[in-house]
């Protein structure tokens, strides 16, 4: 039980560091640590498939993509001008108000049951594969179209147009 609270504290701590780090590279590295704590959360809930997928897809693919983009666009030191203090204050205030509203609506729910894993192989690959390829076969196929269109779109956007094609 205390493992959960320790990992939750680490998640919140690193995610605060993500948005407060001055250097974007440090920000990405803290984001990697945050996602690592999320992987530990998945392992604690025995969602082993999601833990592995989170590890591979987020920490392996997406964050490497972020780092490559940051390398490509070659930021100099004074690239990010700071916002005025009032705007920052308004931003923190607005997000804090959002959190207060959500937590207050949570409070009105009252006490909740503890999370108990009734079926231990709920998050294993065998069980999830059966659900995915029986009930969610059509969304699975549609997501392949989504990935294809994203790939085409990314290539189309990122290539330099040598001649103006309108």
């Amino acid at each position, binding site marked *: 039980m205390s493992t959960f609270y320790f990992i939750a504290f680490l998640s919140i701590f690193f*995610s605060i560091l993500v948005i407060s780090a001055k250097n974007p590279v440090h920000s990405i590295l803290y984001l990697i640590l945050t996602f690592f704590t999320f992987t530990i959360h998945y392992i604690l809930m025995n969602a082993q*498939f*999601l833990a592995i997928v989170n590890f591979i*897809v987020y920490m392996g693919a997406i964050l490497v993509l972020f780092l490559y*983009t940051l390398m490509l666009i070659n930021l100099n030191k004074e690239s990010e*001008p700071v916002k005025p203090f009032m705007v920052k204050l308004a931003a923190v205030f607005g997000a804090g108000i959002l959190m207060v509203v959500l937590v207050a609506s949570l409070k009105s729910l009252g006490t909740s049951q503890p999370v108990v894993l009734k079926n231990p192989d709920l*998050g294993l690959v065998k069980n999830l594969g059966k659900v*995915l390829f029986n009930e*969610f076969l059509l969304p699975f196929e549609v997501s392949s179209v989504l990935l294809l269109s994203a790939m085409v779109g990314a290539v189309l956007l990122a290539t330099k147009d040598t001649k103006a094609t309108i």
Partner: protein
Amino acid sequence: MGSLTNTIQAVPLNHYILLSTIIFSIGVMGVLLRRNAIVIFMSVELMLNSVNLLLTAFSVYRGDASGQVFVFFIMALAAAEVAVGLAIIVMIYRNTNSIDINVLNRLKW
């Protein structure tokens, strides 16, 4: 894995919701606070991940595997979104030599 999964048995569902709420709010704060487009993008990723964690917690709570399949779909969506978004950021940088989002206020009109 038996001893490991026993460790979560005393965590109430509310605490998972609270954790996800806090991380979601931190993501919102990052979007509002920063002007670097890449950091804003990372904050959006943070929000997506908090929702993923909450869906998994609900899925374990209800004993229903559909929630974890949804998380899988959200991850596929996030991969597509990041690919397109970073391509757009690279293109913005090529056109304006900056990734400051305030440069883009001409899109307003």
